[in-house]
């Protein structure tokens, strides 16, 4: 009996309420999911170039045709990487913002941060040409992501200041202020669209629909560093966001430099949202649906929710992008439509389940 007891109670017998093992298993499964969707995404497209052919050619040392090279390496690969980064950025900035505001309804897209980032991007597109040539030369193609980041940052900052009093963030104020800020940013964006010339209008329309279709190595190079930094920095916030769930005072007593972490969280949200909005336009619902699903599955511990959100966000956005590319191929749906169709009902379901919070 004694010899067999290790079977029932090993040294790491499950601790009640400890969801870390489940979270780790979920992270592993999500990694496999993202890898699978990535491969699928490389192999699917209007051009009819199949990944297995290309892989076979690469493995056997046979030269790729120009068409295959262009489709795989200049079209699908940058699009894949952009999708991964944008999906991860949107989901992580949603999770960080919800942790910061201690509320599952906080999402950059809902509380006006997306609109602020959008205003920044539109400003750069329409008025960027008026900048002194020297400055333009320095900023170059980083101008739009940078402006989007600044727009998102200012909006997040204003939102947080308005809705936080003596360390307590009011949910109702946050949602209302977010609506006001979003409307303001939308109106200013409208004015800019009104004065834009034809070429700028085409850029704006394309960008505003929310799509990965414009993905290119150049755009990726401009936005990836900002998104990458935000994603790499996000895990540092995990313990702070966990502590904030108990309130700012308790977090401080747990040894968390609360003010610095709050500033960092705001920067992360602004950077990730701003850069994502700059390359792909307004893609909704990833930021609110992904963290919520994960909290249901593995619990709200940000040490796991943040990396899992990056993976699930990346995978789901790629999946949505594939749907957008295939449903009416060879034409494409804007990906924002796909995420809204899938995400809208889920969001409604969240609202219904959490009416108490909305009513506060």
């Amino acid at each position, binding site marked *: 009996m004694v010899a067999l007891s290790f079977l029932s109670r090993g040294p*790491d017998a499950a*601790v*009640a*309420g*400890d*969801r870390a093992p489940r979270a780790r298993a979920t992270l592993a499964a999500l990694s496999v999911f993202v890898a699978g969707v990535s491969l699928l995404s490389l192999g699917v497209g209007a051009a009819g170039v199949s990944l297995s052919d290309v892989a076979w050619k690469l493995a056997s040392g046979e030269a790729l045709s120009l068409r295959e090279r262009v489709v795989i390496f200049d079209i699908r690969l940058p699009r894949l990487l952009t999708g991964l980064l944008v999906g991860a950025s949107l989901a992580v900035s949603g999770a960080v913002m919800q942790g910061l505001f*201690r*509320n*599952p309804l906080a999402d950059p897209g809902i509380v006006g941060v997306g609109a602020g980032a959008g205003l920044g991007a539109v400003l750069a597109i329409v008025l960027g040409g008026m900048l002194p040539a020297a400055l333009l030369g320095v900023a170059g193609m980083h101008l739009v992501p940078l402006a989007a980041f600044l727009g998102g940052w200012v909006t997040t900052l204003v939102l947080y200041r308005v809705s936080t009093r003596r360390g307590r963030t009011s949910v109702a104020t946050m949602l209302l202020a977010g609506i006001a800020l979003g409307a303001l940013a939308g109106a200013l964006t409208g004015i800019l669209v009104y004065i834009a010339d034809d070429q700028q209008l085409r850029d704006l329309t394309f960008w505003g629909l929310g799509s990965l279709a414009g993905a290119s190595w150049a755009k990726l190079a401009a936005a990836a560093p900002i998104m990458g930094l935000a994603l790499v920095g996000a895990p540092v916030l995990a313990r702070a966001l*966990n*502590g*904030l*769930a*108990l*309130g700012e*005072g*308790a977090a*401080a*007593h*747990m*040894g*968390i*430099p*609360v003010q610095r972490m709050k500033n960092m969280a705001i920067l992360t949200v602004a950077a990730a949202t701003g850069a994502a909005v700059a390359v792909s336009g307004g893609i909704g619902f990833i930021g609110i649906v992904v963290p919520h699903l994960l*909290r249901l599955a593995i*619990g*709200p*511990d940000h040490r796991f929710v943040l990396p899992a959100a990056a993976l699930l966000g990346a995978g789901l956005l790629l999946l949505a992008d594939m749907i957008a590319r295939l449903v009416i191929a060879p034409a494409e749906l804007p990906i924002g439509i796909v995420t809204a169709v899938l995400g809208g009902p889920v969001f409604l379901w969240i609202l219904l389940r959490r009416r108490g919070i909305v009513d506060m």
Partner: protein
Amino acid sequence: MLEALNIDAALGGKPVLQNASLRAQAGQLTVIVGPNGSGKTTLLRAITGDLAHSGTVRLNAQDTRKLPAWALAELRAVLPQASQLAFPFTVHEVVRFGLVGATALRADAAQLPGRALERVGLAGYGGRYFQELSGGEQARAQLARVLLQVWQPVVDGVPRWLFLDEPVAALDIGHQLQVMALAREFARAGGGVVAVMHDLNLTAMFADQITLMLDGQVLAQGSVHDVLTDAHLSRAYGCALRVSALPRAQQVFILPQATEIA
């Protein structure tokens, strides 16, 4: 040794602490009492750094304002009066938040949250959602988290501190005694405990030192017998109170004198 010297603090522009000073020794349970609005919680919040204040707070001879947050967290834990929690964390997860600093690196760190829950009488509650607990259970789960943060009362000869803001307010009488016994146990093991309390009888039963506050100032400070006198209490609470003692045990108790209130 905790020294809070000449603390002034204001809430909403109105001064609530005037030149309040408090000294507490490691190895003792120091209790702050006083009527509603006397500034006892404010004094604790000033000491723990939750509230802007003037004056000096030294913990183990170190100015707390000069210590970084992580170093302070290694030195002392704070139990808040009201507990709030966003997101559906389990009790185990909440208690685990107390695993900070060197304690988190211990070989038996994984077992500690469960043991902390046992100490507050919540063994087997780890898998429940924190928000589903009763008010009293939530208070004890928070206490388990706070106890975990300063698991060893003395580390390398340096005492650690527990600051408790009304730790028994939400508890039934059995759990009140249990929690007070835990606080005293922590002090007996060499740690320092400073608690804000309403219950004068529990205070009389467990406190080593008492600070009695009135109108933002310290009215009396000292041992149970020095502070809990008819005169002090009647003045502080504005009603007739009689301090008595059981004949055989040396247990002091306070009896309100209903007839003299009118």
